């Protein structure tokens, strides 16, 4: 059975991506029990949609980087369950968006790809969780600066990139998250925008973002491969990343495509710890 959402599309009338957001919303509504929130009317008469927006998981569909739908959700203090950005999805699927608001074959194909991803994510997510054996006990080395404490896992299998994103490897599977340095620098994390399950990601390519009142942090993937799961708990409660970014605050899981080569550009604990200390001294000095 398809997942059922309260769908808040941007419905933009300026770019093709706005038309695709509308198309995806309509596909979800026509092929299941999802219901659409009109972004314009919601601002004018919010009581019309308040019940719907809180009863069903909220799916926000932004067309472009202006993120009008996300901003509206924030303004109305809604809890976002999932977010999709059409422009990002087009990039990941190598589809070039045209200028016309009349959708061409490729743009309709993109709408269908997004629709299918949204309605099959749950199955993929569960499958991935079943096979990933993350260690129960993580050992940490700690670096203290003033009142701040920065932890780095010392367990074998953890690697780090220069962008302060960690990856834990088991066989050809990986779990990924950000380090303490990131979460402390951002302070209270309020939003997590995930990459889509099923996307192929290259090493050092963007794979979602997290956002606090201070800044947006693009999650730079430390490895290449296919995204197999997203930690849905941090979509609902991004503060879990602040509580512990290595355990309950993990971000996604991937099936690796070329770890032997990827590893050459990563740090293990021994080489990352001095990097972390230098960054902390510079940033919090």
């Amino acid at each position, binding site marked *: 059975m398809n997942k059922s959402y309260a769908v808040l599309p941007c419905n933009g009338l300026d770019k093709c991506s706005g038309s695709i957001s509308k198309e995806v919303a309509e596909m979800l509504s026509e092929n299941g029990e999802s219901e659409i929130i009109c972004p314009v009317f919601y601002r004018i008469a919010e009581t019309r949609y308040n019940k719907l927006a809180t009863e069903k998981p909220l799916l926000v569909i932004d067309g472009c980087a*202006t993120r009008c739908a996300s901003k509206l959700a924030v303004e109305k203090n809604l809890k976002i369950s999932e977010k999709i950005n059409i422009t990002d999805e087009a990039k990941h699927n190598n589809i070039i968006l045209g200028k016309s608001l009349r959708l061409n074959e490729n743009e309709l194909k993109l709408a269908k790809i997004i629709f299918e991803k949204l309605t099959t994510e749950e199955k993929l997510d569960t499958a991935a969780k079943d096979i990933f054996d993350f260690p129960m006990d993580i050992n940490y080395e700690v670096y203290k600066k003033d009142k701040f404490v920065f932890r780095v896992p010392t367990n074998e299998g953890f690697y780090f990139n220069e962008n302060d994103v960690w990856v834990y490897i088991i066989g050809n599977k990986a779990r990924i998250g950000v380090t303490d340095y990131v979460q402390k620098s951002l302070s209270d994390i309020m939003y997590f925008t995930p990459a889509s399950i099923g996307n192929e990601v290259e090493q050092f390519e963007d794979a979602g973002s997290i956002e606090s009142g201070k800044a947006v942090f693009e999650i730079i993937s430390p490895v290449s491969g296919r995204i197999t799961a997203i930690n849905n708990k941090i979509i609902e409660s991004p503060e879990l990343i602040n509580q512990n970014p290595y355990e309950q605050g993990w971000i996604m899981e991937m099936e690796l495509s070329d770890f032997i080569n990827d590893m050459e550009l990563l740090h293990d604990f021994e080489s990352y710890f001095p990097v972390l200390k230098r960054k902390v001294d510079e940033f919090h000095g």
Partner: protein
Amino acid sequence: MSDKQVGVISCSGEECLGGTLSRLATRKVMENLRSKEVVTLCLPLYIAGGDEEREFAREYPVISVDGCDKCCAKRATVKYSNEVKDSINLSEIFSQEMMLANIVSGRDLKEEHYEMADQVADEICRKVDQILAE
């Protein structure tokens, strides 16, 4: 051809046929009928606080195109920028009952709906030409 430009701010509403027809008609004007004379303003962005859209609506004449009597586009323009130069309400051209019909997907539209959108597009063009002639 005049250098003067006219803004068109259209309902891009969900839920009703009026929103879908407004969107189709505005798109046709923007892409085909008056592509050089018309600038469309994205209503969701405009309401969300788009500075460029709001500034344009303060400086240039704007036609609002609303799908039903709620008149979201007209009201928003008046609230955030200026009085509209002219306005179109589809429920006055057709009927409120028809405009509130639950047909929103382009895939459900029939020939008669496209003819209605064409009629609205012609009405937008008529108003654009009138403003440019002033």
